[in-house]
């Protein structure tokens, strides 16, 4: 019965494509493929890297039908690959300048590897749940639009987005099974997500006229979350217990936007825009310790430990009101000169209130449960004003220059309170005033000395200066001092990139690019001297080359060398974070026969940042190498029929995980494609 329904549905969808019309053209593609992998090694790591199910998948990869006529367009698009959980069904019917209907449903899966860490001196690692994690994203949408005779568009769209499944987390749990080294956090944890968002929008837009364009949109979004994070602490010890944190929040978001653009003269065009957002959220959640996954709160659960902190019965509200106004002008004072200015104002009010029962465990040997009714409250107001000016010059033959300056100044007030209901004590009571200034200066110069050669230079300097002034703060000597503890925090970034595109001879294209970025964070905290808390430096050199020595052969190659370091003055306690890597790829296509093409693809990645300081730290820093190569044979049997066969190899070597995530995979794939 389901098959019949599906058949009828498809027939109905395809019917418009078959409508007779003298000038209409119908074209399309039908591709069916099947593939799988022979794997030796870690399966979750393979699935995460390749984003395919190991056991293979097959089905209709693409069914696309397009019917084009002078006054109409019909498109149908479908994918049906059950093994890989990849589905899509979309259609669009459009009558030019009159109306359109657009609808569809799609679904795909994202794979994750749920591994925790490895403590190298003893080779300690844990598998406490199935590490083959995956998240399914789904989307359903329907949109209708119609143009009035003066080409004003009215459109309504409904979209439902969902994601559910399991996903890895880096909130690793602790273990004492590391010999005499004490405690290390290497136990894997994971998320269980179930989220849904319904989005309704109504758009009115008029952009057919040359002198005036305007638009308005009302959007209402409803989101509900049923998310859980599962952690395990001290597994296989006497203190083995699970923690589940739930977020059961929901919210309504309403936004209204409007914009108006008018060309006042040939030299001057002005635009104004406004945005109003209201957000109403309902908070719910808990964090509960217990003996099993997703436990019910029990004050006397076995294996409880001192300071097993959590909460139950959280409920509350979160509200936000935001207004944004913008104004822009484009002024062309002289031929080849343009000046663009923009202004922005934002006002935000935010209030959040949560009540919950805080749970804790006292000292042994009794390990008595401690319960407290708590209320947390937060109010924030924020005003921000910003402006930007950009000047562009195109008057010099073969040159374009532009420069932009942007500045933003924001000021606000922030109140936080945390009240213990049974004693009436305000454990947190503070009010802060804060200011944020941001400046950004950027320039771009592009030079086209002759066809096929382009030299582009871009750079910017950006600075954010944040000042915090705690007007009232009762947490001066307590541990909950943030955010009032920070009094100043400044960020600075210099960025430069140069790109040369060069065609030294016919058939050979070269692109060379160099990027450099330098950043610095300077922090000052209450009663302390300012410190340079971080310094980042990155150099990226990338080169691509495309060579086509003859019509039957092309070769493209890409190389990226990245030196990326982040330094804090804390080497003794946290090893340096280097993100250096090299990756390279090569692709080659060759017409091997009258109907046969061969394609060779290879890519390689290497990061060598691993430093084993596991005697004093957890081993971090990536030491990884991946190798991917494939050979594809494509046979064009007829003008309409194409066969493809592919063999690929994927290898992964991961030093950070002591080889536990290593794998070698041989991937086989075949596809037949029919074009009409």
């Amino acid at each position, binding site marked *: 019965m389901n098959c019949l329904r599906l058949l009828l549905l498809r027939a109905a969808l395809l019917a418009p494509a078959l409508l007779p019309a003298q000038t209409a053209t119908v074209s399309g593609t039908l591709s069916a493929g099947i593939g799988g992998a022979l794997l030796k090694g870690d399966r979750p790591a393979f699935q995460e890297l390749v984003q395919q199910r190991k056991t293979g998948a097959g089905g209709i990869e693409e069914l696309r039908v397009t019917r084009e006529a002078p006054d109409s367009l019909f498109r149908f698009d479908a994918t049906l690959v059950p093994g890989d959980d990849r589905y899509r069904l979309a259609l669009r019917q459009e009558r030019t300048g009159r109306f359109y209907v657009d609808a569809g449903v799609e679904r795909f899966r994202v794979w994750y590897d749920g591994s925790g860490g490895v403590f190298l001196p003893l080779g300690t690692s844990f598998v406490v749940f199935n590490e083959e994690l995956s998240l399914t994203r789904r989307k359903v949408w329907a949109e209708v639009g119609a143009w009035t005779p003066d080409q004003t568009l009215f459109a309504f769209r409904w979209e439902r987005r969902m994601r559910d499944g399991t996903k890895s987390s880096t909130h690793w749990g602790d273990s004492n099974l590391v010999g005499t080294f004490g405690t*290390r956090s290497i136990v894997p944890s994971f998320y269980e997500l179930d989220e849904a968002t319904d989005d309704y929008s109504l758009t009115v837009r008029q952009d057919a006229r040359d002198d005036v364009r305007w638009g308005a949109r009302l959007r209402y979004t409803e989101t509900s979350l049923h998310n859980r994070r599962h952690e395990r602490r001290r597994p296989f010890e006497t203190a083995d217990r699970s923690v589940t944190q739930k977020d059961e929040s929901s919210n309504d978001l309403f936004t209204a936007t409007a914009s108006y653009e008018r060309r006042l003269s040939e030299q001057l065009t002005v635009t104004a825009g406004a945005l109003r957002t209201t957000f109403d959220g309902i908070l719910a959640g808990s964090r509960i310790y217990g003996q099993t996954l997703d436990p019910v709160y029990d004050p006397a659960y076995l294996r409880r430990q001192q300071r097993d902190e959590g909460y139950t019965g959280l409920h509350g509200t979160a509200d936000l009101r935001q207004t944004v106004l913008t104004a822009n002008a484009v002024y062309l004072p002289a031929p080849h000169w343009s000046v663009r200015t923009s202004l922005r104002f934002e006002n935000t009010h935010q209030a*959040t209130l949560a009540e919950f029962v805080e749970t804790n465990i006292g000292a042994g040997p009794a390990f008595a449960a401690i319960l407290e009714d708590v209320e947390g409250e937060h109010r924030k107001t924020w005003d921000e004003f910003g402006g930007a000016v950009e000047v562009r010059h195109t008057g010099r033959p073969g040159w374009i220059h532009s420069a932009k300056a942007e500045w933003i100044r924001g000021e606000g007030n922030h109140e936080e309170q945390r009240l213990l209901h049974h004693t009436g004590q305000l454990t947190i009571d503070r009010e802060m005033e804060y200011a944020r200034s941001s400046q950004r200066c950027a320039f771009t110069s592009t030079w086209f000395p002759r066809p096929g050669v382009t030299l582009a230079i871009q750079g910017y300097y950006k600075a954010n200066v944040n000042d915090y002034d705690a007007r009232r703060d009762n*947490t001066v000597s307590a541990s909950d001092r943030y955010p009032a503890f920070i009094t100043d925090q400044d960020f600075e970034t210099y960025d430069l990139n140069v790109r040369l595109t060069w065609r030294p001879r016919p058939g050979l294209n070269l692109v060379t690019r160099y990027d450099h970025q330098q950043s610095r964070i300077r*922090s000052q905290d209450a009663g302390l001297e300012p410190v340079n808390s971080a310094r980042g430096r990155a150099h990226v050199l990338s080169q691509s080359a495309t060579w086509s020595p003859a019509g039957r052969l092309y070769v493209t190659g890409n190389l990226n060398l990245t030196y990326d370091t982040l330094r804090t003055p*804390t080497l003794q306690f946290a090893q340096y974070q280097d993100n250096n890597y090299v990756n390279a790829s090569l692709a080659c296509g060759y017409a091997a026969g009258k109907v046969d093409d061969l394609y060779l693809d290879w890519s390689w990645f290497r990061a060598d940042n691993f430093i084993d300081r596991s005697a004093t730290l957890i081993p971090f820093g990536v030491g990884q190498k991946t190798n991917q190569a494939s050979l594809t044979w494509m046979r064009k049997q007829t003008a309409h029929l194409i066969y493809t066969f592919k063999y690929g190899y994927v290898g992964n070597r991961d030093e950070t995980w002591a080889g536990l995530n290593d794998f070698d995979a041989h991937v086989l794939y075949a596809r037949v494609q029919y074009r009409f």
Partner: protein
Amino acid sequence: MKIRPFPSRSALVFGGTAAWGLLLVSCVLVNRTVLMPPSIPGATFVGSKDCTQCHADITRAFDSATHAKLMTPGDSRKEMGCEACHGPGSVHSKAGGGIDNILNPARNPDTCYQCHTDKRGEFALPHTHPAGHVTCTDCHDPHRGDAILGGGTRMAAANETCLKCHEAQRGPYVFEHEALRDNCTACHNPHGSVNAKLLKARNATLCLQCHFQQQTATGLFIGGRDHSSYLVQRGTCWSAGCHEAVHGSHVSSSLRF
């Protein structure tokens, strides 16, 4: 089943010999063109003026786009207009439209990678947004205004680009993490990272960028409290039982959970 790692010596010898033989034979027998992606067979550049005839709604606003900085006046530079990204348009223009005779970078990022070669490298890293499902145009608008959506003097806030897919991180929270006010990119690299979760740093360094305050002979003080043993044992500040609520908390001012 035992699988040998690639490439074994015999595989290389056999494969290389076969490839060389095939090359020699086909060089003699074949005179055909193989298409290099992204490309359009038989198409030549016609200039952006042709595009305005049907796509005026896009071309009229394009002057405000970041990519408009690549366009110089003059016929000899015409390949730097619309066709710089969509490929030569003569076949598309002659046919009066169509989707198989023009490139759509929204479906294939190779067009973007032609200039943004560094991003090709980042998207080839072990941790990226899922390829094929998230493309450049999901976060960047190449046709109008700044290519980077949100932030600065633009209508939307910078984080809105991320929050449209990552709703759970929207907040607002009772106890905020001020870093979110700066941007999601304060901690994540959206194009790709060698670290899980697209993190800029996979250890406590990520947090210490802003939260390093005092180092003494005995320890490392954060918020006036010695954290040295925690950092050593846990590796990250957001390990289970520490400061898990990295995006904000409804419960704990120190973002415990």
